[in-house]
């Protein structure tokens, strides 16, 4: 009787630890979502204060990264989890790394907003960057939701969205190059625009990664270097 009580208590604590890192990684996700949102807003509204907030708060994202890594290391060392528990810890570690990178990209976008203030040149391009930003923000939100629910369908759907983002990015690149050829004086500004577009496109890629981790966790299969079609075929729901 006493033995079974002990093991229950033991595994309860374990479960709590696992639940905690899951919640922590989602909280980190929430912060990164907000950073990305603010960075895009500061670009759209030319608000230097918002942009400064993003840059200032980046340390919080890094603090999360360090904290979660420590917890996961402890769990791996002390509990030696197996099967789905092990996959969960690995998923959390990888997702944390990607979220930290997304935070960095958001900081990059914010810095660009600070440098350029209210620029009239390339206004049209700014609008397209905003549009791209919206799509990426949506993607991040949905990836994190799919992680929260461990929803493979949603993860696959979100991964699909990355194609649109890549296409939009390429289109922005082409338009920037046209502007640059027309008026060389606008090159510095357009360079910044290209950097921001690139940063956003990379955020999209990282969201894709997170979706792949979700699939890995649920299905136990590593789909990181598999094409989307193959994934769909395997889990075609």
């Amino acid at each position, binding site marked *: 009787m006493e033995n079974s009580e002990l093991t229950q208590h033991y595994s309860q604590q374990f479960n709590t630890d696992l639940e905690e890192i899951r919640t922590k990684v*989602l909280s980190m996700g929430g912060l990164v979502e907000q950073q990305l*949102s603010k960075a895009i807003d500061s670009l759209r509204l030319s608000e230097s204060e918002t942009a400064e907030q993003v840059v200032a708060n980046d340390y919080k994202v890094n603090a999360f990264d360090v904290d979660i890594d420590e917890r996961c290391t402890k769990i791996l060392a002390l509990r030696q989890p197996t099967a789905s528990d092990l996959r969960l810890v690995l998923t959390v570690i990888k997702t944390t790394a990607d979220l930290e990178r997304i935070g960095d990209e958001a900081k990059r976008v914010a810095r660009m907003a600070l440098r350029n203030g209210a620029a009239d040149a390339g206004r049209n391009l700014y609008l397209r960057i905003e549009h791209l930003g919206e799509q990426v923000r*949506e993607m991040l*939100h949905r990836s994190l939701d799919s992680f*929260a*629910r461990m929803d493979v369908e949603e993860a696959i759907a979100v991964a699909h969205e990355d194609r649109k983002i890549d296409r939009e990015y390429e289109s922005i690149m082409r338009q920037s190059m046209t502007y640059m050829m027309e008026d060389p004086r606008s090159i510095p500004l357009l360079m910044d625009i290209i950097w921001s577009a690139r940063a956003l496109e990379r955020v999209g890629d990282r969201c894709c990664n997170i979706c792949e981790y979700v699939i890995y966790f649920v299905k136990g299969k590593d789909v990181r270097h598999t094409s989307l079609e193959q994934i769909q075929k395997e889990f075609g729901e």
Partner: protein
Amino acid sequence: MGNSWVEEFWQLALIILGGILLGLLVGQVWIVLVVVLILYIGRNLFNLQRLIHYLNDPNRVEIPVHFGIWGVIYARIERMRNGYHQRERKLNGLLTQFQSSAAALPDAAVALGSYGEIRWWNQAAREMFKLRAPQDIGQPLVNFFRAPELIDYLAQGRFAKPLEITAPGNSYKKLSIRVTTYGNNERLLLAQDITDRVMAEQMRKDFVGNVSHELRTPLTVIAGFVENMQLEEEQIPQQWKKPLALISEQAARMRSIVEDLLLLARLESAGVKMQSARVDVASLIETIAKDGRALAGDRLDISVHIESRQQVAGDLGLLRSAFTNLLVNAIHYTHDGGEIQLRWKKVKDGCEFAVEDSGEGIAAEHIPRLTERFYRVDVGRSRERGGTGLGLAIVKHILQQHEAVLRIESKVGHGSTFSCYFPAKRCQTETQ
């Protein structure tokens, strides 16, 4: 109940009597008696076993004994169980009623357990947070609603003030979140859509700001020309001299109202780039007192009491405006021969600047409304005194920007004290 014991007693008495008789018959009274008593104890032990068996599964096992003490025990158990069942049914009924009425709430409501896990939500919450049953039940709400402000708000556990926050996924919708605790550390989270209210507030502020800005230019023109006209005194017919003076006065008055409104609008929108420097309050007060004495002349006695050399982190210009405002008010509302004291001292958890006057005082019912814009205690009197009616509102906002509060104490006929309380984190000692 008493009867059953009597019954039991008689039973035991009969058994013992029977035993003695049997013993006499057989010739071994004591042995027979012992055997009979052992049998009696055995029967009771057997009944105990049946009781345990019954209690293991009261729903399935039939009541073994209906009479005697044991019967009473079983009857009591039955009664207790019926009581429990009734209460359970009643609670379930209430719960269903509550859930259906909460489902009708226009506000989103989510019931959370002690770990912040989702227990239940109503329709409005499902739409707002895109929750899905049954997989989301038991998960912490913050896994889905991930805004850092909400996470901090729920963690700190003090819910006296609601939280205003942007809705998840949508940067245009604003929500007001209220949390109430009940039961065993359970919480109910209510989210109200206040987008309209926030937008209306914003429009109001923008409107005031725009109107004030637009009024500035025409007023400047009027005041400028009137000033020019007044310079050419000889050219002005006598009958127009006084009207011109009045026009100039009123134009100046309008301009200061407009300037005050603009300052207020800037303070409210937190667009004011506050300098964050160390302000030597003591010397600021001395300067203000000097200005005050110039304004009041010999009418009043203005004294300065510096009890601390603490400095404040903030904007010198804004603080100067705020303190001057308070002093000017004190001067205007104190009769000749009165006195005004300016104090700067260290208090518990912070530092405080106070203006104490021996003026006419303010009735208690006016005090909460004093910092409202254009609020006048005595309309006729204030109009003749001049002023914009915005002074205290400006003071309040400046203090807010410095994380400070304005406190007002007053007694009619004795005087008033206006204090600015700065929290410890804003106060610094001179040498730092």
